[in-house]
């Protein structure tokens, strides 16, 4: 154990040594405004959501059909060739064919706006449910394929293992059976989109930039409540980010904080609800009615604490802040950045408000949208505060034997798979606008990924987890040469994506660091040792 020598720098009387100034690696940062909603009067909520599905289908159908053609052309069973069908309603009974469309899942526990309306439940958001499946009655889940012409009910054993959710665009191969259902033999997804090269958006090659030795830090779920109970780990995090913890170059030390070029906060920075809950409010109705700011109904301390945390670290490190479910931003995706007026101290580091049309330099403190897309150190990042993963998880049958969707290892694995699935569906938030509230986009669906990110992250997950996925090499169904194609892939062959499931800091105390050169991941964990005092 190295403890005898370790720390000798600190465990000794004060010295007269001179301290070097440590400088942080510079950050190259270029946020994209993919999810920026039009402001002010241009933002309308009267439109129908149906357009989003059609836009999505129009965008992704060519992609998935291309893959389907590659795979299924010439595919035959018992001498019958698979035929391509343009619209789902053109499928003829007993004919081997394939067709592309949008998945729609009808599930017993899925919130239904029509039900809510008939029961006049439309004032409050429905309480989140752990799953939309009815574990007691798995048959009640129906999977349908939909396009502009109509719907086709899908069936078959394959679906039991397939992970699908509403909004995914896929192509299915099979036949329509006597019941009018479509027996699925195979499924194709659009797969990863084109991935830009590193630094591509800057118009330079990675060689020109030279190696950088930075790290990008991710944290989510700070869950600041403003009480003293939640802030100790936050203090340690602050100390670490500011470099007070020490810049030892020892092998096992946490990576020196000066290498961290940027902190990305992926949602749920504020833990407690800032307004007292609805029930308490109704009880208090007896008092005189007040309008405007009511100090008794609004607890400002979480956001104040968050502000001072940001103001403390901002002098040293640039921060990208994404809102999350519990943050003071709009609820429906894409959530727009938390307004800088919420941060009287930290807003000094914001970019000045846009004056006119011209695009300006992003601020040192950047309050961005959720989901968010942007280039950091040349890498393309695509991330969400976790609502997308949480919601898709409710569609899938990951319940264990007892029927409860636990937080076990399997759950984290499922979340990873969902993230991977999203990338392969090319849709970061497939379940919006079905079960996730969303802005009714009319002209485009920003949730469709135009470019494959290098780092795909989801915040507020129960555990930390990471993985790397690669594009499917074009597989043939005969499968013999699949191994061959897998071997000779080098870095240039296809998209490689680093998936990150970022845990809630409040529960785990974990900060995730991604190396900007190798995209390798490290975790720094901040905690207190529950010693004898607390065990007593």
């Amino acid at each position: 154990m190295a403890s005898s020598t370790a720390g000798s720098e600190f465990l000794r009387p004060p010295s007269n040594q001179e301290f070097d100034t440590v400088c942080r690696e510079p950050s190259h940062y270029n946020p994209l405004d993919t999810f920026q909603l039009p402001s002010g009067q241009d933002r309308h909520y009267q439109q129908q959501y149906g357009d989003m599905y059609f836009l999505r289908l129009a965008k992704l159908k060519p992609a998935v059909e291309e893959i389907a053609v590659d795979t299924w052309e010439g595919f035959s069973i018992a001498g019958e060739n698979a035929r391509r069908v343009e619209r789902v309603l053109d499928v003829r009974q007993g004919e081997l064919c394939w067709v592309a469309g949008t998945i729609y899942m009808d599930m017993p526990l899925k919130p239904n706006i029509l039900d809510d309306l008939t029961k006049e439940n439309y004032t409050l958001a429905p309480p989140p449910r752990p799953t939309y499946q009815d574990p007691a009655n798995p048959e009640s889940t129906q999977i349908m394929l939909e396009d502009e012409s109509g719907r086709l009910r899908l069936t078959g054993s394959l679906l039991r293992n397939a992970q699908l959710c509403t909004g995914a665009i896929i192509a299915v191969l099979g036949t329509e059976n006597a019941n009018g259902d479509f027996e699925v033999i195979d499924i194709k997804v659009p797969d990863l989109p084109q991935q830009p090269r590193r630094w591509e958006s800057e118009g330079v090659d990675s060689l020109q930039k030279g190696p950088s030795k930075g790290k990008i830090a991710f944290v989510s779920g700070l869950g600041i409540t403003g009480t003293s109970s939640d802030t100790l780990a936050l203090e340690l995090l602050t100390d670490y980010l500011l470099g007070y913890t020490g810049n030892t170059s020892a092998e096992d030390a946490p990576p020196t904080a000066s290498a961290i070029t940027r902190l990305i906060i992926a949602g749920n920075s504020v833990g407690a609800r800032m307004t007292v809950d609805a029930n308490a409010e109704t009880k208090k109705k007896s008092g005189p009615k007040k309008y405007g700011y009511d100090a008794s109904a609004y607890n400002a301390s979480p956001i104040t604490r968050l502000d001072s945390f940001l103001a403390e670290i901002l002098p040293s490190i640039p921060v990208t802040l994404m809102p999350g479910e519990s943050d003071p931003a709009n609820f429906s995706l894409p959530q727009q950045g938390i307004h800088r007026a919420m941060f009287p101290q930290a807003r000094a580091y914001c970019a000045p408000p846009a004056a006119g049309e011209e695009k300006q330099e992003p601020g040192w403190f950047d309050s961005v949208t959720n989901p968010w897309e942007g280039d950091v150190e040349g890498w393309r990042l695509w991330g969400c505060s976790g609502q997308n993963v949480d919601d898709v998880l409710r569609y899938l049958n990951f319940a264990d034997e007892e029927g409860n969707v636990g937080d076990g290892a399997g759950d984290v694995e499922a979340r990873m798979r969902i993230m991977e699935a999203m990338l392969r569906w090319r849709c970061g938030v497939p379940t919006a606008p079905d079960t996730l509230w969303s802005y009714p986009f009319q002209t485009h669906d920003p949730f469709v990924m135009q470019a494959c990110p290098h780092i795909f992250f989801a915040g507020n997950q129960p555990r930390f987890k990471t993985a790397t996925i690669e594009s499917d090499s074009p597989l043939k169904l005969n499968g013999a040469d699949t191994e061959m194609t897998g071997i000779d892939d080098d870095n240039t062959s296809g998209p490689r994506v680093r998936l990150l499931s970022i845990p809630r800091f409040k529960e785990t105390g974990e900060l995730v660091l991604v190396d900007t050169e190798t995209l390798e991941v490290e975790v720094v964990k901040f905690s207190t040792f529950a010693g004898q005092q607390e065990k007593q």
Partner: protein
Amino acid sequence: MAIADYKKYLAENVLNERRTVTYRSIGRALRVHSTLAKQMLYDFHHNENNKKPNSVNATYIITGVQKTPELTSAANEAQDSFDDSNGIPPSSPYVNSSMPNQDAVTDEIAISSVLLVREEDLEDAKSTFQSIASIHVYSIQPTVLQDLNVLTDVATEMVSNHGQEDPLEYGKSWGMIQGNNVRRRTGGRPPVPAAAPAPPKTIIPAKRPIKSEEPIQPKTEPEEKAPEVEEATKREEAPASSKPTEKTAPPKQKGSIFSSFAKAKPKQKKEESATPASAVESAEPSGAEDGDASDEDEEPEELFPDSGKSAPAGTRESRKEREEKLRKMMEEEDEDEEMPDAAPSPEESKPIDEPPPKQAELKEEITVRGGRRRGRRQVMKKKTVKDEEGYLVTVEEPSWESFSEDEPAPPPKKKPAVSAPKGKPAAKPGQGNIMSFFSKK
């Protein structure tokens, strides 16, 4: 400097006042590097306990790599099971081509820890580490901390005590990692291009206690700046007001000269005159800021406090007086030129000094609070009623309307169209919609 003082400081705080001192709080208090602060705490703790055992208690930070299982293995565990599933395709052979295949490659994740430990638990905690990179004293306090969370109170207190020290300036001496490209705006917002009233700037310095240095600047700067700006105002105003069409705000009453005309108009002027200047300035610092982390140079917004309303409360009064003086001077000039023109209108032909009797009815109650002007004023309103005989009768009667700062000061009274003499049409645009008057230029 502080090397000698730290023992005294610690003895006072820890032993006498029985407070908790963290390495950051002593670092801030004595303005020393964090490493030095840690050493001070260690030294004090060591010495005191040598003198008298258990007189001082400490907490430590251990950094390093912890042994895996139980404590930190959540991620690792998950990873293992995930690895297993890689080997076995979870479903039919088609899964490869259909669904997200689980070819995700997981790799070894280094998890390092930063652990806060009480003195008593130090050895226990050390034993959970596979290797230790560093240990340092986090805090010292007179007794064992029952609840480590009280340490956050120390931090809160520290922030409130030393919050005014600008981290950009002192960060280096504390051992803070320096961000080279920090961009900080020292003011609130850049000038709004439209003619909207400038937002009250006073909020910005007031709400940012971090910088003790800077609030001084904004205070002094406006003082220096004010004459300049006013000169500019004057210069621009003189030609503007010499245009004969302008009615020079018939003197309604003393209050309304400056509230309705003078106040609204110069403000407008100032924004116009200030905007180009500040635009230039705002363009410059952005370049300079990149190089210089602490951009203490004046920012565009500082011009704005000058514009009457948004000035800091202290300097406000005196400046107003000055402005009024200036305006009175101008007013007088205008009078000479404009009186003949104004003559046709009966009310307005009255000499400035004696308020016309009619104006007396129209009152204005203005409260100026926090740079905002709001209140009620009496205006003449036309009212059409049907009388007993079935005729429509239009009567003019005074009525109260409330106003606040942002509405353009309306003409103090609306006159019935009938009574408008030849001079009137000129007066109306001049007063009622002063914005449009100036935009014509």
